Structures are given as structure tokens and as C-alpha cells.
């Protein structure tokens, strides 16, 4: 999972990490990154979507721990 997360574009990975591990809300993250809230929400969704696909690939390849 860690490796899958690391393959995301930086902005998506950061946003996900801030939200999930940092416990920040989307508006707090928007403020911290100085980005519009809509952009932050979009990255969360895109990032999760990518992560889901990467994890799928990992499984198919016998992959990620």
C-alpha cells in the first residue's frame, strides 16, 4: 500500500496523507496548500481512484503487502 501510495502524483498523495493521516478537513488542507477547496476534493477522489487501480495491479501481480 505504501508503495502504491508513493506512485501517486505528489499533490494527490499529499492531500490524501494530510486528510487521512493528518486528520485535516478538506478546507484546512485547502488553506494549508493554498489551493481551492474544489481542487483538494478533486485530488482526493482522483488519488483514491489511482490508488485503487494500483492496488488492483499489485494483487494481480501477486503484489503489495
Amino acid at each position, binding site marked *: 500500500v*505504501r508503495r502504491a*501510495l508513493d506512485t501517486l502524483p*505528489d499533490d494527490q498523495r499529499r492531500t490524501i496523507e494530510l*486528510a487521512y493521516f*493528518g486528520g485535516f*478537513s*478538506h478546507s484546512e488542507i485547502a488553506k494549508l496548500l*493554498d489551493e481551492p477547496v474544489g481542487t483538494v476534493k478533486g485530488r*482526493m477522489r482522483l488519488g*483514491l481512484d489511482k490508488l485503487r487501480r494500483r492496488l488492483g495491479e499489485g494483487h494481480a501481480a501477486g503484489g503489495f503487502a
Partner: protein
Amino acid sequence: MTTRDHASYQEEIGAYLLGALTDLERQAFERHLAGCAECRGELERLRPAADALPHSVEQVEAPPALKESLMAVVDREARERSGEAPQRRPGLRARLPRLSGLRPVLVAGALALGLLAGFGVAQLGDEDDPRTIAATVDESRLPQASGRLQISGDGKEGAILRVHGMPSPGGDRVYQAWVQRDGTVVPQPTFEVGEDGGGAVAVPDDLSDAQAVLVTREARGGARAPSERPVLRVTL
């Protein structure tokens, strides 16, 4: 549904799964979800990714007080930058050293929060604050560096370490803070510095019984134990 349309809820699916909506937003989202098969489908499609996240690191909850003070710092800085006006846009970005790893290291106490502080707060702080302690730097390795530790309250709620004149650690490395206490060294978050050599990191650990805060250069993601002699030390 009512005032908001489907697209605006659909947009929030990621934030919902990551727990990044406020209570009110979450309730509104769930009400929409109940009547929207498309959003439910999308939610279930993305859920496995969110469910996998806990497996990537050991999770540690942020000390709420530290998180609040960090947000206060960011708010204040945003206000200062924008004159005094509303506090939004003319923002931090230009100065943000790339937000460091923000990768919650695998260790207690090291959570994204600290890394967060790696940007934006570098310019803050009161020079005269009696709770600010200057760091000792290993000048043979970091000739230009300096640092100051700003302790919140009695130190039980951690501190913010700000550095200047620090070169990029090179390779795929980052700086990592540590708290030294009774002969043990406790990992704290990692951080990066900006092009100007400035950076900051929140040190969430209780410092009331600690002897020092240290900084070393470690592989991205952080280490469980220091791999080198500290390049910077704040003696408490």
C-alpha cells in the same frame, strides 16, 4: 436533492472516504447518498483504496492542541501575507518548500502534522519569546545552518523547530527530528527545507522530561533510529 446538485456531492466522495468532511458536510453527503445510486456505486468502487490506507503505516492521532496551534500559525501567516485582507489567496505557495514527505513515518508520534509544518511556518515566531531555544549546529557538515525551537506552553504539547540555512540533504533523503529522553531517542516527523534553506517541523512529543531535540538526515519516509550523528541539536 435540495440546494446542491449531484455533481457537487460526487466531488466529495474522496473527501468523505478520507474523513475530511466536517460533520455537517458528512451528514449532507450521507443524505444525498441515500438517494443516489450513482454516488453509492462510485463510493463502493473507491472504498477499497481508502480501506487499504491503514495498512500503509501505523496510525497515530495528532495531539489536538498542536494541530490547532499549527493551524493558527498558518492562518496568521496567511493573514500577514495578504496584508490583513480576507486571508486567502496571496498565499503561502511561493514560499512553500515542497511539502515534505508528509509520509507518516512508521513510528509513534510521527504524524503527518509535523511534516505539515515543514512548509509555511518558517517565517514565523517571536525572536524574543523566552520559550525559544537556539540550536547548536554541527558546522563541519552544515556550515550555514541555524535553528530555533519554539516550545508551546510547558512543553507537554510539543514544539515547532524552525531552521535556516540548511542545504537539501541530497539523494532521496529528508531531515528527521528526534526527541532524546533518558538515553532513548524517539522518532519525530521528517521534513524538507525550501530553496532558501528554511523549513520547519512540528515536534509533537512531550518535551517536559526530554533532554534534547535532534535532527539527522534520513531516507525519505523516516527512520526508527538515527543513522548518523545529529547535524543539529537543541539542548533543553
